[in-house]
């Protein structure tokens, strides 16, 4: 039986899915109506009711298209426009939304301190003060700078109880008596200041609320100084509420304290919070834990036996899926006390305007001064009144807050970063980015352990105050161990070893153009070689390419020929110069004009003025 063509046409009505905006949707609807309903209505002009209905349908379609596009765009940070969407994208990518950055500057404090008696070769130790952290200085433009470390004119007593003047002090003769005897000294010492104001906000916390949020009153928070409640509990800032430990610096009291200022302590942080910053207002909200302080015991030590597989009446065990993190973490994600006051001290403010010019910080807004040796009050007041401040260098580091677009541009870079050490690059990056007050690793290198396939050898080396290589102090290694431990995978083993320093002496013989001054040509060659062998250009396991040395010599104007170049290993003590005790056979380790160090070794020309020796032949 034949089917009517009209019926077939109606059954396979053509729909266009390309129309998305008002005009195309209206045209599409109009075409559809004219094609399939010409016998029902014909007037779709703007002035007609049919046109009105057509407009309304197209309008609805246009709206739906718009919001579909909009929502799809909001999923991608590149195309997102709503602050909420951008914030979510930034958070999920690990980008920290920060306000304006503060500037830092070294402020020099000047004081006049009398001598204990006229003519003394130094100030009266009892009158040497400590300018306490928290003192506030202000620039001419009104920018406040807070001192973030004590300026100690006098150093804490040693084990014998003897105070000494801080050796870093710059001392100048002050006033003299008529007979020429010195009666006072001008002393100066630097201290690090950071711009911005420090305020304290007290918030009353009522009954327990999980994941309580407290918004800070000021925008552009640069640092949460401390948070504590009336019960004396200190709340620690963590990257995420699932992090239950923080690291704290502790003064290094061991013998290598001159090289490693602080030790690293791991502190359990059941009372913790994390920061959320609003993209539009740049106001910060503290997000506290989800547990009550009443259940603190649960948070401190999770009991693994609680997670035993249930076997009440059954004699068989079926396969069960298990989340191993349950054994390691708590359910509370941190705790917060209830019915108390939370005191939050924070620092805020920053921006380009905080990069004040040199000598512009001169007013003292708030001064906290202590005299450890308790001098007479009248003398202490005189010293206090003599205090002046200045900044020799411009403040730096102040930056305006990053715009949403700038923050979005950071996402690709931050996505590549991670909190775990997986690759060799991860490990090196962690070593080099350890806070400098925990000790500074100058060079680090990684090689597989030939005796243990599951272990990696990490060679490290440090520098002393004269920029010469030294073995890294033990405190640094201990700090490094604790620091790396939290990032390494459980099956990874890292052996921290000292890199072997191979000291070298370079001897070379050249022919110099007789028409030129030998001394000046040689001085140029020596300067170039000293620069080539600067320690900052040397890396662990890096070979020395002898051809490069020859090239450097030969490329100097006035050098006619390079007769010989010889690298000699030098060790122990030579002419009262102390070298490393590593003996390295240069000849057997030179291959194809390249001198290779031992595994985990680094070359150093320790005394470039002496150990680069030139000889001129004619």
């Amino acid at each position, binding site marked *: 039986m034949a089917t009517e063509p009209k019926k077939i046409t109606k059954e396979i009505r053509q729909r266009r899915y390309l129309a998305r905006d*008002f005009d195309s949707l209206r045209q599409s609807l109009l075409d559809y109506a004219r094609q399939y309903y*010409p*016998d*029902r*209505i*014909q*007037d779709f*002009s*703007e*002035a*007609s*009711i*049919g046109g*009105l*209905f057509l*407009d*309304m349908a*197209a*309008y609805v379609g246009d709206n739906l298209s718009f919001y579909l596009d909009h929502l799809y765009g909001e999923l991608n940070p590149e195309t997102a426009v709503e602050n909420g969407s951008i914030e979510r994208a930034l958070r999920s990518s690990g980008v920290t939304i920060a306000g304006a950055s503060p500037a830092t500057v070294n402020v020099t404090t000047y004081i006049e301190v009398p001598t204990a008696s006229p003519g003394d070769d130094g100030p009266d130790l009892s009158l040497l003060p400590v300018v306490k952290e928290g003192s506030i200085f202000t620039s001419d433009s009104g920018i406040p700078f807070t001192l973030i470390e004590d300026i100690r004119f006098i150093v804490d007593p040693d084990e014998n109880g003897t105070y000494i003047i801080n050796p870093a002090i710059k001392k100048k003769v002050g006033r003299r008596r008529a007979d020429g005897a010195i009666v006072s000294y001008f002393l100066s010492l630097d201290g690090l200041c950071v711009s911005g104001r420090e305020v304290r906000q007290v918030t009353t916390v009522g009954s327990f609320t999980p994941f309580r949020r407290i918004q800070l009153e000021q925008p552009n928070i640069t640092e949460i100084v401390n948070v504590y409640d009336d019960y004396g509990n200190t709340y620690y800032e963590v990257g995420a509420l699932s992090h239950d430990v923080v690291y704290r610096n502790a003064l290094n009291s061991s013998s290598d304290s001159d090289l490693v200022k602080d030790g690293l302590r791991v502190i359990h942080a059941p009372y913790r919070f994390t920061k959320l910053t609003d993209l539009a207002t740049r106001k910060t909200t503290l997000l506290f834990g989800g547990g009550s302080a009443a259940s603190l015991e649960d948070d401190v030590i999770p009991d693994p036996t609680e997670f035993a597989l249930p076997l009440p009446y059954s004699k068989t065990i079926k396969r069960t899926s298990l989340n191993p993190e349950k054994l390691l973490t708590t359910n509370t994600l941190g705790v917060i006390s209830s019915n108390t006051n939370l005191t939050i001290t924070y620092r805020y403010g920053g921006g380009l305007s905080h990069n004040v010019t040199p000598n512009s910080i001169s007013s003292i807004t708030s001064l906290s001064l202590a005299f450890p040796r308790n001098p007479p009050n009248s003398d202490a007041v005189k010293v206090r009144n003599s205090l002046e401040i200045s900044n020799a260098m411009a403040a730096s580091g102040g930056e305006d807050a990053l715009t949403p677009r700038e923050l979005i541009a950071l996402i690709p870079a931050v996505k590549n970063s991670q909190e775990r050490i997986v690759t060799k690059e991860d490990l090196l990056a962690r070593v080099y980015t350890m806070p400098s007050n925990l000790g500074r690793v100058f060079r680090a290198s990684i090689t597989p352990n030939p005796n243990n396939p599951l272990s990696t050898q990490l060679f490290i080396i440090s520098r002393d105050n004269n920029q010469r290589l030294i073995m890294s102090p033990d405190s640094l290694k201990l700090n490094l161990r604790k620091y790396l431990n939290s990032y390494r995978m459980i099956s990874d083993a890292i052996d921290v070893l000292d890199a072997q320093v191979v000291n070298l002496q370079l001897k070379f013989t050249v022919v110099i153009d007789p028409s030129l001054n030998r001394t000046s040509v040689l001085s140029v060659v020596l300067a170039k070689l000293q620069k080539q062998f600067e320690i900052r250009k040397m890396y662990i396991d890096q070979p020395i390419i002898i051809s490069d040395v020859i090239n450097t010599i030969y490329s100097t104007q006035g050098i006619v020929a390079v007769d010989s170049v010889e690298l000699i290993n030098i060790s122990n003590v030579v002419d009262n110069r102390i070298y490393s005790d590593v003996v390295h056979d240069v000849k057997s380790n030179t291959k194809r004009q390249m001198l290779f160090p031992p595994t985990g070794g680094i070359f150093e020309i320790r005394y470039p003025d002496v150990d680069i020796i030139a000889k001129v032949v004619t």
Partner: protein
Amino acid sequence: MASTISFKSVGMTGQKLIESNLIPSLTPIGIKTPLKLGKKYGIFDMYTNMSDTIHDNLRNLILTNWGERLGLYYFGANLRPLTTEYSVQEEFDSEAVIRIKTATATWMPYINLIDYVSDFESYTKLSSVAQIKLLITYSVPQLAVENRKLRINLFVL
């Protein structure tokens, strides 16, 4: 016996033709306003005559104010504001004529406006609202519509 059949009698009777629906019924063109349920052509009552459709559209155009039409903000003659802005009839008329002509030229350019007559009715005891009654004469040359009159009532609140 041979019979003769005239070809003129071949086919259906007129009544049959209508019943078989081969004579097309009048085609609905536009929707009547105010909207009414349709009995013959579908969900709405429809005009089947082009001149009536245009007449209805013109009335709607003149009664529509700016912002009332979805998606076409400037659709309409926008006379409502004039009812409160002008108390003198001459001023109202001069502005109303301009607005009606502009709107017609924009949205219904095939209409040729001819006359405009207005009549103000003030408040009375019987009516609590004042009215402005407009009588517009127009033609549609393409449809051979001549001097058709459209009555519009505007209420002054």
